[in-house]
């Protein structure tokens, strides 16, 4: 996947893994079951409205809290193509890369993107375009080491290839 283009779901600071996927659903690890409850405690309409290829945009510290990989798994299985945030909590950041959910850190983009905007992200260049507003932002490109993991579509394949 070299790019993503979709409608934006917009959230604020400190979106924690408990609201991304509440622990009451952690008795399963099935991606489809997890996706059915994704963002339920912060946005009950999310799962009804989200379509394949949509994009989540948030402010600071997205994915803070628990180490549950179920959180990026639920987001990916819900069809989200990319998460853009000002910053990510570090365990979520690792987990997203390891399971192949594209994420981009960009200090400026969240301020220029609103819910419902159409946004396009180029993963090779890190350029984020707000098609609704006609603006663009430069996201942070991944270090080469992480690009290799992403190119292999996750850590498991990366290890298998070595």
């Amino acid at each position, binding site marked *: 996947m070299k790019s993503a283009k979709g409608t934006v779901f917009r959230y604020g600071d*400190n979106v*924690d893994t*408990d*609201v991304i996927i*509440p*622990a*009451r659903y*952690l*008795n*399963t*690890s099935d991606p489809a079951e997890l996706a059915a409850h994704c963002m339920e*405690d*912060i946005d009950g309409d999310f799962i009804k409205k989200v379509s394949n290829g949509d994009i989540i945009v948030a402010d*600071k*510290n997205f994915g*803070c*809290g*628990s*180490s*549950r*990989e*179920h959180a*990026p*798994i639920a987001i990916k299985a819900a069809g989200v193509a990319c998460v853009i945030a000002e*910053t990510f*909590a*570090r*365990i979520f950041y*690792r*987990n997203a890369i*390891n*399971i192949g959910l594209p994420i981009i850190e960009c200090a400026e983009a969240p301020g220029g993107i609103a819910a419902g905007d159409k946004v396009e992200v180029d993963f090779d260049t890190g350029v984020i375009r707000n098609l609704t507003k006609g603006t663009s932002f430069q996201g942070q490109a991944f*270090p080469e*080491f992480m690009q290799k993991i992403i190119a292999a579509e*996750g*850590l*498991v394949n990366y*290890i*298998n290839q070595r």
Partner: protein
Amino acid sequence: MGMTMTQKILASHAGLASVEAGQLIEAELDLVLGNDITSPVAIREMEKMNVSGVFDKDKIALVPDHFVPNKDIKSAEHCQCVREFAVRHNITNYFEVGEMGIEHALLPEKGLTVAGDVIIGADSHTCTYGALGAFSTGVGSTDMAAGMATGKAWFKVPGAIRFNLTGKLNRFVSGKDVILHIIGMIGVDGALYKSMEFAGEGIGGLSMDDRFTIANMAIEAGGKNGIFPVDDLALAYIKEHSDKPYTVYEADEDAVYDAEYTIDLSSLKPTVAFPHLPENTKTLDEITETIRIDQVVIGSCTNGRLDDLRQAAAILKGRHVAKGMRCIVIPATQRIYLEAMEEGLLKIFIEAGAVVSTPTCGPCLGGYMGILAAGERCVSTTNRNFVGRMGHVESEIYLASPAVAAASAISGNLTGPDQL
């Protein structure tokens, strides 16, 4: 350029003479940990890897503790998956119900975490072992899978924030108040991607259980790890619990820190984090309104150790919890449970009208054993007060020390132990 304590441990495990912040390294692991929530996902990922087995059956710890004893059929299936994997790979450190405890209280007690180790765990509170001078950090299930298969993990070497602790804690003030104070000061992303390095003569006055509590909540400030220097008290703990070889690392004199704070421990007061973020802290004397409480939880990987139970028992002794209050006490391990029994603490809890549970993470993450209804409030010694963390999205969690939790159970309102 000098290195921090964390950087020195990482350099040694990466086979490098020195490392600096931002550098990507691959480090050898001394221990890989997982629980009943995260291990099934890791096991599934490991089975996709072209590996014949685990890197070292003695360096993996599997601790079903979150929904254990099994809370429902799906949880039972998760535990079954972990148990069968442990048998299949002859994992030495698999802890079944009856010998298990909350992972971050259990592993130090079993001597599996010692100074100088590099430890990853598929649980965010893996940072607890920094109290013993280890580098330990939480990761996800895929990292755990790769760790179990290869014995290695990639890290970006963290920069550091230094917390210079001076003075001595006052009565009714504990490690929980120290870390809540720090999180209130720097925020829930104040240490994002960084190590939190504790230093200063004030550490000498902190018990090991205080230090475990402080290191445990480094993640609540976004930290990669929290770490304490290894003093005589830490060495005594390690020698009492472990026969593993350990290495004591010290930060270089000229180590570089992104920020430094000095905290006079004698100035700290009982502190509470209000809903819905651990950074929403107030000291008890700043609270003017009456906050009615429905439930109190004393336990978790943050505050379920013997010192914590002693502090709660000292306040509950000879008193009774308020009418309509549910006070739930959860010793973190079987050994703590037994010691609390032998010291008479459990008798105090039960006579005070509290319930005492088998070790489990249960209510901390809204699993079971104390779920909140809409509109209910809980004072909890746990680590997170996010929306819906302990149950209904309209419930509220106030994070506090065991002393404040016990006092609140008695009064039925958010209360300090000196206000009873």
